[in-house]
């Protein structure tokens, strides 16, 4: 039986292109057939999770979806009765993230074995589910419906690695049809995104990741023995890995957004020229945007409000600094329970705190600190290098460099 990882090769795109033709024609004439969309989605979910992967991933996906469905639906029924107990809400959120937590912790406690309940994309589905529960509590989602929730969770173009859409935004697109002029623009944009994705993922990421990176890794391993086993090759590896990470993930995200546009869904973009960021905060507004905004809206802001409400800390800056650490620590932990992912998260927390402090200092001393074209370029250069260094930590290569024989 056919089996693919999404967007892995030309065959996948050819099959996808053919499957989308009826859908595109329908949308051009102002018709959206949920029946056909469901069939296409099912077919592509089967291609991704069926066949040889059915027993290792497919079953886990089905069980997971039923679980989250019952949970979210149950919570929405509870809220519709006008009840709003805090502990019920916490309990629902904890249950919603429980499967993901098990999947992330299992390899760390079970000698590197993967959990049986994991499948490709479980993180991204969890983000969508938790977000829905939180908004049901807020009352911003009033008419929760499984008819929206299931297609939202299982929207196949974004199932494996995002971008992370929001329930209400998705609902708006999914229940309407863009007018012809707008849809034609979306088609043009979508196709452009897909081809830009080809350039990113199949040319640039291939060059950096598959051709250059192994060579740099090899020479770096040979030149171990100096201070912290460092060498020029480690520096080269750092930049090469960063380039690979960006082009691979941005390429993938472009595919996901492009295909969404073809289906008349304006999935939000994930990257916005991150290498032009002026500071680390700016960077997180441009890099993996849907993830960092998710963390901002559903972890950072909520924790800040909670601490302020309970007057835990006297100074607002202390509150935000503590929350940075919690927020980025969770993000690091989410990538996996290894020292380098968690260090990566904490490193970014520290960078954000230092950045805030610097901006406050700069504001106070506006007259004495120069601001010109040169300082702007320097800021961009400096930020990019801090980010690349954090990616070196993230890559786990230091782990290989230091702790393998």
């Amino acid at each position, binding site marked *: 039986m056919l089996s693919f990882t999404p967007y892995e090769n030309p065959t996948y795109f050819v099959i996808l292109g053919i499957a989308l033709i009826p859908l595109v024609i329908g949308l*051009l004439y102002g018709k959206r057939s949920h029946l056909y969309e469901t069939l296409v989605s099912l077919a592509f979910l089967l291609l991704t999770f069926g066949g040889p992967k059915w027993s290792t991933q497919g079953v886990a996906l089905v069980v997971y979806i039923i679980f989250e469905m019952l949970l979210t639906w149950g919570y929405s029924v509870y809220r519709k009765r006008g009840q709003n107990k805090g502990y019920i809400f916490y309990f629902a959120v904890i249950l919603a993230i429980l499967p993901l937590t098990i999947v992330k912790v299992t390899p760390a406690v079970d000698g590197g074995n993967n959990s049986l309940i994991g499948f490709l994309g479980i993180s991204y589905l969890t983000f969508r589910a938790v977000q829905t529960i939180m908004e049901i509590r807020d009352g911003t989602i009033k008419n929760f419906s499984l008819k929206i929730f299931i297609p939202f969770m299982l929207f196949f173009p974004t199932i494996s690695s995002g971008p992370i859409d929001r329930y209400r935004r998705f609902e708006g697109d999914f229940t309407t049809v863009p007018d*012809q002029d707008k849809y034609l623009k979306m*088609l043009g944009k979508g196709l452009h995104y897909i081809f830009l994705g080809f350039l990113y993922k199949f040319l640039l990421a291939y060059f950096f990741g598959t051709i250059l990176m192994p060579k740099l890794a090899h020479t770096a391993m040979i030149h171990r*023995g100096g201070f912290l086993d460092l060498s020029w090759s480690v520096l080269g590896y750092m930049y090469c890995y960063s380039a690979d990470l960006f082009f691979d993930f941005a390429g993938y995200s472009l595919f996901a957004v492009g295909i969404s546009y073809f289906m008349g869904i304006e999935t939000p973009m994930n990257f916005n020229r991150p290498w032009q960021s002026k500071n680390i905060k700016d960077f997180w507004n441009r890099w993996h945007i849907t993830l960092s905004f998710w963390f901002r809206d559903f972890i950072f802001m909520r924790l800040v409000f909670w601490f302020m409400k309970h007057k835990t800390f006297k100074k607002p800056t202390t509150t935000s600094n503590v929350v940075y650490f919690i927020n980025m620590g969770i993000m690091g932990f989410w990538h996996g329970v290894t020292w380098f992912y968690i260090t990566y998260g904490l490193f970014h927390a520290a960078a954000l705190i230092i950045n805030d402090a610097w901006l406050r200092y700069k504001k106070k001393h506006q007259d004495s600190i120069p601001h010109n074209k040169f300082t702007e370029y320097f800021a961009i250069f400096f930020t990019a290098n801090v980010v690349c260094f954090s990616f070196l930590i993230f890559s786990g290569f230091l782990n290989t460099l230091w702790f393998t024989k």
Partner: protein
Amino acid sequence: MGKRLFQIFGPLILAAALVLGIFLLPGHLIGYTANKKAQEQAAVSLSPSVLKGAGLKTAALDDGYVPFFGSSEWSRFDPMHPSVMAKKYHRSYQPFLLGSRGTQSLTQFYVMQNIQPQLKNQKAVFVISPQWFVKKGVDKAAFSAYYSQLQTTEWLNQYSNTKMDRYAAQRLMQMPSAKSDHIVYAALERVAKGQQMTPNQKRYLGLRQNFLKSEDNFFSGINLPNGNLKKVDQQEKKLPAQYSFSKINQLATDLGKKETDNNRFQISNSFYNHGLKQEVKHLKGFQENLSYLQSPEYSDFELCLDQFARLHTNVLFIIPPVNQKWADYTGLSQSMLKQFDQKIRYQLQSQGFNNIVDLSDKGDVPYFMTDTIHLGWKGWLAVDQRVDPFLTKKQKTPTYHINDDFYSNQWQQTTTVTN
């Protein structure tokens, strides 16, 4: 709407039509234009793309190059290296080096699939590395690096239901690269079971082969690395203008002495400095429990023998030694190496492969090896002493009698053979 749709999708459709048109043209219409320089580069490039391709190899082999199958030893270019010797003394043969770090019997079997006409009733050289014959056999990642869909489709398009083909299919299915094309995988499943492929599979493989062949014709000559050819030209200059065994022998000793003076193992200085020096204290005794006696590699190697026999290729096999000083330091068992030699020789000789250059007892000859396991100066010269007459003089036609028992697990696991 039509106009705007055309503006959006027109270029895509045009590009798709062009690509399809070019690749679906029958391969011979594009043809491969071989140029001598590219052949010379390709013959010593050791590049995976040359190994995986077809056009360059076949053109060169039709042009007087002789296939030299092997692995990492080919990258040890010194003046006595077969490619350097053949070039310097204008031998009637020029080696086409096939293989590189990580290529083993299974890869070589598939490499043979698209040079069958060039092997038929011809001669070849084959270096057998004892290090291939480890417990797990060929490393899956290394096999993937040299995996060629073109070779697989060419093989499937001409396979016959024999033990060789069934076994080759079985082994390929154990490799992750076989799963890269699910139709090929399904075809392999049938071949492994001894069934015919379905008509659809055959049609697909025909198209696929055509496509891959066009791709190969287009791209195989592009961007050939020429670093190794430069090395050959540099090394060549060190040789005396007229061939003289005693002069070259002396040169081998001198070079060996000069280039191995920073360590006690007679390992070349550059190899030693390049990562071994720091590790050496951890490596004492690390090969104590290593054995080359039980390995799936024995049956993979049988695939090569079987294929040679079917094509009546006359092959000179070379069995290199292990650097004795290194073996002693790392605890590699000499008796195990001796048993390995017996076992591999039994597999060769009992099936009629009698052209063997067995160097396995030369590990203690000074400057025979360039590093831990690879032939160098004196070793290459010893090889040349046998390769040159083998390829330039008329040889007796061998008669082979292939024994399918060498595909059995029992043979893979046998540790002692009595000749």
